[in-house]
């Protein structure tokens, strides 16, 4: 698995009722880096993530993963390259047991069942979920479900990991484990989140999205320190942060 | 309206398994050909939705009793006939297997009664032609009520046919029908209203929720009905022709008639006395008292509750229970290995 870079260029998307959701989003995430997507509700973060592997198709513009554009003809490759972790693990753990969920992607990719099962078990062990292989998803705790959903995606060894609100519904211990996990992964990571402390700990850079547009991007610490801008876009500077440094040139503002 | 196994003969049950199984196979083939993978999770979730919605009762207007959503018509409006039929079948399967709501042998009957009529008859022949393009318009409501009533009444009729054809329950055909049909009328109206209300609500947010009709589904109605009639008629008549007058045969085999033997021991004498009190009546009629005067046929075809039958039956049940208990207790004793 080689981490891949992700490029979004001029992405425009409208909801079925024609309201614009994304109005020309452009940014780039270098391979192996972790970037936080922050912004108020309705900014379009989840909608944006769904474009990375062809769940949604833009009206204009597009996405490139590892240099290759995500199109209807390349979508199968894009889906193996980009691991998308959804907000609600129940939407993602749809098989009768955890093991079958983790093996799902492998089997669809054509791996023989015995090998897929072995690889699934290895993945579960790697995430400390080995004992839960035979469990049905409803018998897992919220943290276990979250980890299992990530494991199911990671089993396919994607080059990019895109996560939508990964720390929601986690207790402090589960959240701590998630943060540790995300920091340790070599993939390119794009994390859409309201959890700004997590963004600070995991992601070096952040992109602020509002009204379907990129409003600002830069080093996470600097971006979050700008209280005025944060509040203008429905966010708050995290209370736990140290006092903001003086004006930094590392933040670029989009007109 | 779910039929239990206890009322279905193997002939009728098998016949309807054949019809429903064939329809299921047809549906899955059509769905595969449509090639829309998103249908798979949608069917699963909507099946779960119907189950969940059935948990919450509403007051049936005009009668004061509670009802719950059946869901057949609603599923067909949302999914189209083929996917709806499969979904309804899956809901009925879980209801039968997990909740004992409906039998296993009777599953084919239930899938036909509650799935075939809404999906392939009521929806394509009544709802779609009458409803018009806007699910919120009054004519759509009327169409839903009409379709639901027709679907449920046909289902109720079908239940009667299956019960009578099975011959396990010996209810007079007319009485049963006169009982089933009126009961399902307000239920049908309520189902139609509930369906229309839910569709109208969702359509205002998701206009595409109502699926386009399918012309081939109408054809399926005719094929399904023809197949059902042929299979049921064929199987049942074959079964009946194998037997002498079905009634006599039934009576003869009912509890095992045996000759009364002379008691020798005290136990036998006591049991013999008990036997004397159990009278064998030569004249009887199972189809109402008008047959009371008829001859019962050959002596071997007389029936009666013999003591051996009673004693044997009770003993057998006791043996079954005792054996089960013994196995259970043996299992509880800690085993030497595993």
């Amino acid at each position: 698995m080689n981490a891949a870079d992700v490029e979004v260029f001029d992405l425009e998307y409208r909801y079925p009722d024609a309201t614009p959701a994304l109005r020309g989003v452009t940014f780039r995430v270098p391979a192996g880096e972790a970037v936080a997507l922050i912004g108020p509700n309705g900014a379009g973060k989840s909608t944006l993530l769904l474009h990375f592997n062809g769940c949604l198709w833009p009206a204009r513009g597009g996405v490139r993963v590892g240099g290759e554009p995500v199109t209807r003809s390349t979508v199968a490759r894009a889906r193996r390259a980009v691991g998308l972790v959804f907000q609600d693990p129940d939407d993602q753990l749809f098989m009768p047991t955890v093991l079958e969920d983790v093996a799902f992607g492998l089997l669809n990719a054509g791996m023989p069942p015995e090998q897929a099962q072995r690889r699934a078990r290895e993945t579960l062990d790697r995430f400390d979920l080995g004992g839960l292989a035979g469990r049905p998803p409803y018998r897992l705790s919220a943290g276990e479900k979250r980890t299992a959903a990530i494991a199911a995606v990671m089993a396919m060894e994607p080059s990019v990991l895109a996560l939508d609100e990964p720390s929601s519904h986690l207790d402090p211990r589960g959240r701590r484990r998630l943060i540790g996990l995300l920091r340790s992964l070599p993939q390119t990571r794009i994390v859409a989140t309201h959890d700004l402390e997590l963004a600070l700990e995991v992601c070096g850079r952040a992109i602020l999205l509002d009204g379907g547009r990129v409003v600002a991007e830069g080093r996470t610490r600097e971006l979050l320190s700008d209280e005025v801008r944060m509040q203008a876009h429905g966010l708050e500077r995290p209370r736990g942060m140290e006092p903001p440094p003086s004006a930094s040139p590392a933040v670029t503002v989009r007109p | 309206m779910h039929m239990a196994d206890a009322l279905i003969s193997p002939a009728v049950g098998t016949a309807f398994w054949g019809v429903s199984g064939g329809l299921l196979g047809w549906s899955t083939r059509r769905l595969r050909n449509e090639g829309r993978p998103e249908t798979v999770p949608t069917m699963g979730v909507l099946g779960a939705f119907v189950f969940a919605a059935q948990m919450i009762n509403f007051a049936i207007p005009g009668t004061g009793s509670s009802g719950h959503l059946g869901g057949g018509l609603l599923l067909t409006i949302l999914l189209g006939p083929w996917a709806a039929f499969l979904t309804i079948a899956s809901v009925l399967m879980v209801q039968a297997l997990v909740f004992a709501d409906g039998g296993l042998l009777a599953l084919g009957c239930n899938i036909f009664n509650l799935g075939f009529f809404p999906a392939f008859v009521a929806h394509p022949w009544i709802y779609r032609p009458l409803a018009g393009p806007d699910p919120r318009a009054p004519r759509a409501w009327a169409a839903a009520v009409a379709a639901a009533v027709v679907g449920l009444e046909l289902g109720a009729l079908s239940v009667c046919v299956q019960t009578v054809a099975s011959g396990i329950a010996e209810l007079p055909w007319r009485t049963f029908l006169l009982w089933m049909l009126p009961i399902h009328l307000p239920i049908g109206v309520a189902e139609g209203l509930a369906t229309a209300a839910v569709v109208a609500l969702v359509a205002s947010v998701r206009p595409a929720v109502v699926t386009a009709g399918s012309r081939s589904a109408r054809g399926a109605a005719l094929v399904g009905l023809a197949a059902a009639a042929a299979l049921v008629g064929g199987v049942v008549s074959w079964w009946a022709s194998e037997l002498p007058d079905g009634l006599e045969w039934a009576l003869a085999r009912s509890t095992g008639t045996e000759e009364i033997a002379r008691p020798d021991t005290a136990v036998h004498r006591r049991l013999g006395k008990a036997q004397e009190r159990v009278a064998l009546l030569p004249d009887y009629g199972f189809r109402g008292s008008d047959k009371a005067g008829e001859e019962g046929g050959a002596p071997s075809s007389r029936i009666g509750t013999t003591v051996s039958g009673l004693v044997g039956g009770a003993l057998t049940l006791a043996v079954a229970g005792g054996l089960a208990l013994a196995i259970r207790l043996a299992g509880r004793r800690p085993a030497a290995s595993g």
Partner: protein
Amino acid sequence: MSSADWTGLRSIDELSRLDTFVHRRDPRAMALATLAYVAVVMSYPSGSISALTPLALYPAILIAVGRLPVRPLARRMLLAAPFALAVAAAHPLLNRAPVAEVGPCHISAGWMTALSILLRFVLTVSAVLAAMACVGVDRLAVGLAGLGVAEMVAAQLSLLHRYLLVLGGEATRMARAVAARGGGARLPLRTWAGLAGHLLMRSLDRADRIHWAMASRGFEGRLPRTRRLQFRAADAVFLGVCAAGFAAARAWNLAVALGRLTGAR
């Protein structure tokens, strides 16, 4: 069905995870045995009572070997009984032709039929519930596919089963919220429609998300399975013993034979 019934699904799931001889049976064998049993029970002529009793051994042994708790199964049976009970109860009323006497009581043909129906109900329902408690819905789905049922049907069963508890939980929460605002156990149609409509919209949204999640991991229409079914010798023996037992019970009235052994004639 009340929210308490969700325990039915959970308890079947939990029970199916036990490890006993009958739990280890191939789901196809269990399905065939159950179907055969039900067919045999229902093949008896109307009014049969004592002839049916030996067949009680099958569910009894299944329950005992499978270590299945009797009370929940009995409760479920009672909940499912009303229609069959109603039909059965109609018989003594409709058919009063006397058939036998025990002491001062006349037993009418109607009573015989009613008792027969009730007995069949108990036998068939207990057999099906016991079998399901040994197999579980998911293994049944795999077993059905193994028996040649269309993969889509098996997939539908699995997905329905998976999301039943999820949506059931949502529905319960919504109903409780309504009840807290003064709705009774029985809502007016308009209120119900609002609740159901809301639940439907959430369900459709969830279906969209599940499909995206599936597609993201390569789904193209078939749910891949890792479970392999292995029909073992023990399964063949199980089926053979069942078949022999059912056939023997059907061919001869074993209860009467047993009764005669005790000397009763």
